[in-house]
């Protein structure tokens, strides 16, 4: 982990602890997005934390981890918006999920590491709307109604209504009774 004291020398011990926690969380988050380049990861985490710190200066009540994660998400969402050629809508979470799905399906995490989060080097392969053809259950359905044909069960149908299920104890007693009878006769 980056020694935060060098980044933010003005922080007191208690604040430092909270920002350390935020650092770890943001670093884990970016790592979970499969950023493997150590230098790039450190740079991205610092960028998010610096933005978060500016924000907490304006809004002192906000937890560092919340502010930092929001900044990290904003960074990713902005990049997704640029790549997919869509402006961020009010439904940020849906937009973000769609973007991440497109990234996964376009192999961004594995094959296009260098382009990830780089506004200037956005890869053409990250196809906008990749998730449009993501149809797990094939949405082209044509629903029909199916219903069973009438089936007269005959004798068994009538018996099913009246017959009681034999009790295990009764069955055992009957068996023993028959066995004793057979042995005695």
């Amino acid at each position: 982990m980056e020694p935060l004291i060098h980044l933010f020398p003005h922080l007191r011990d208690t604040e430092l602890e909270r920002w350390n926690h935020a650092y770890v969380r943001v670093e884990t988050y970016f790592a979970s997005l499969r950023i493997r380049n150590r230098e790039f990861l450190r740079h991205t985490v610092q960028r998010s934390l610096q933005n978060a710190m500016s924000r907490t200066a304006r809004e002192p009540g906000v937890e560092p981890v919340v502010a930092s994660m929001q900044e990290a998400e904003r960074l990713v969402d902005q990049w997704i918006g640029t790549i997919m050629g869509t402006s961020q809508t009010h439904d940020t979470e849906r937009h973000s999920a769609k973007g991440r799905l497109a990234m996964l399906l376009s192999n961004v995490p594995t094959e296009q590491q260098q382009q990830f989060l780089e506004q200037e080097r956005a890869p053409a392969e990250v196809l906008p709307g990749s998730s449009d053809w993501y149809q797990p259950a094939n949405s082209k359905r044509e629903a029909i109604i199916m219903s069973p044909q009438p089936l007269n069960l005959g004798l068994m149908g009538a018996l099913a209504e009246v017959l009681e299920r034999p009790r295990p104890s009764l069955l055992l007693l009957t068996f023993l009774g028959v066995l004793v009878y057979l042995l005695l006769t």
Partner: protein
Amino acid sequence: MNFPSHNTFSSQAKYPNPKLPNSQTRLERRFTLRSTLFFCSIFAITLIATVLMADFLDRSGWTTVKGFLLAAFIPLFGYATYGFAHAWFGFWTLRRKTRDPGLLVNGLPKSNVSLADTKTAIIMPIYHEDVQDVFQRIRANYLSLQETGELERFDFFVLSDSQNPDIWAREELAWTQLCQELGAFGRIFYRRRADNTGKKAGNVAEFCRSWGKRYDHMIVLDADSLLSGKTAVKMAQQMIANPRVGLIQTVPRLCNAETVFGRVQQFTMRFYGKVFLAGLNYWQQHNGNYWGHNAIIRMEPFMKYCDLPQLPGRKPFGGHILSHDFVEAALLRRAGWEVWLAPCLGESYEEGPPTLSESAARDRRWCGGNLQHTMLLFADRLKPASRVHLAGGIMGYLTAPLWLAFLLLSTVIAHQESTEIPAEEEPSSLPGLATLSFETQGLFVLGLTLVMLFLPKFLALADLCFDRDRARSFGGARRTSAAVLLESLFSALLAPILMLLHTRFVIEILTGLSTSWNPQKRSSEGIRWADAFHQHKWHSLIGISWALTAWVIDPVFFLWLLPVLLGMLVSIPLAYLTSRRDFGLQLKKWRLFLIPEEYKRPPILKLAAQKSPEHVPSQELPILEQMGLWDLILDPYLSALHVGQLSTGPTPEAQSRPQFDPVQQQRCQDLLQEGPERLTAEELNQLMACEDALRWLHVEVWRRPNSQLAAFWQERLEDYHHTTGEPSA
């Protein structure tokens, strides 16, 4: 019928009415002739045996117990003869020089039938199966079909009924990885039902209701099925060439067995199967049966006639039909559609249970389903052959209590005769047998029974002598003979154990203990001695008690009973030893219980054994086996994947999904603050099905400080930091 007229099928114009008058004649006449000959033979042999047995019992004085014994003997002998007749007629059919005109494949025109303008769905209903294995098989089926050049005529559907959220998560990931690897988005589909009403039949019915209209045929696969592309294409071609056919059942061959039990079963099915299936096809013709998978079904009649009714009355006979396949075939036949068995369509495979205990678990399930068919035996307008199939399935399990009763009654008779002054046996009252001694007649009845049971094995062996290539593929004539001998010994030991197990199942089911539908374990690892002891201690105890009783009654009677008691006595070591993989592989090394697929591996099995290429994106995603519910919440990509799955398509599933209402919101809070243990599996499933809840959880779990997260999530984040947070320069 509730079939709206606006939903007419595209295929209707292409196919003639199945009830055209000229469609009957020759086929029906042939069926009538053959089935009459077949069943009359069974009846005649059983009648002879019954008369001999009755006379034998009568010679030492008739008693009530002997009456019961004879009553148990008749169906038991009849059922054994039913098996024998299949092998006998099968052997005879296979020896004929000319092609059997009563085989569906012979009706296929020589030139290939074009699949243009037809669409076939290949569906695989799954429920808590090994995810990696399932998608590996889909991959093999897909690649094999791709090689035929007819891929565009087929779509694949994985129809999940899994209720465990962890397995659901794995299935989704495996599906995505597979589609990425094969470029098969839009060709392989994945659908999960939130509610698994009607189990497998309900799962398939839901597919039919949603997508059935878009397809002419569907090929139904089991979770362990493998079907080569060539066979799939041939099946579709057969359906086009034979427009009156509603269903074609291939013969799924067992494969990939490694344990002793699995290998013996695999060999048995493969080796004896040929003559039995030829015999089955000889009499049943177009009145075939459906075995639930590795079959192609014409969508139109299936959707029209095969929606299964709920049976009246209470469980175990009432309610949903548990074993749907036989019934669906019977309903298709009832509506006039032909159902064929096509053993000639090769490269159709499945896997069998690797151990006795897993085979018994499967039998428990099948037993419930088959006994329930009693309700349908006398159903209106079913074809006689369909009734025979249903009755055959029922008898498969009822013979166990009948055999047990027969053996118990024999013990009672032995006891009675040992306590009485032996009476002089009367001469036989049958014409021509007056000079036959009592013992000889007894041996004759026993011999006749043994012929019914063992001659089919020798017929299969004799059939092998006519085909050198086939003999070589089973390891050579000598090794095959040795395998047949060992198998006969094994089945003799196994039969009494199955008798006790099946009797227990029948009693449990009839007395209303629920018939569960548990997933079948497919592992080939052996069982522990403790497990073998736990599962078979009662069988051993029954065997010991019975042996002692028989010895006390009469040592000669004990010797008569010993072959049956031996199986019970050795049930624990037998279950243990036959579950061993290393012993099974040793047998394979000795080229015993070999099957042709092990001699020359078909491409589809090679494909199924092939691992996915290492460069596929899966290496960057969690390892499938270790993946769980929390990955769908934490992992940015998997979370998006799951949400994407929930948000696609206006399916009935989507419409019935839970809303992110205050109840769900509270559950989300509980999940984060107190961990997953706070929620039931059902509640977790509902959360996993709610798109908004999932998105909210993903954002919230990353944003919350540790103080507001349950220890579970803190640990998961810590793990995540270790597994994904170690970037390299």
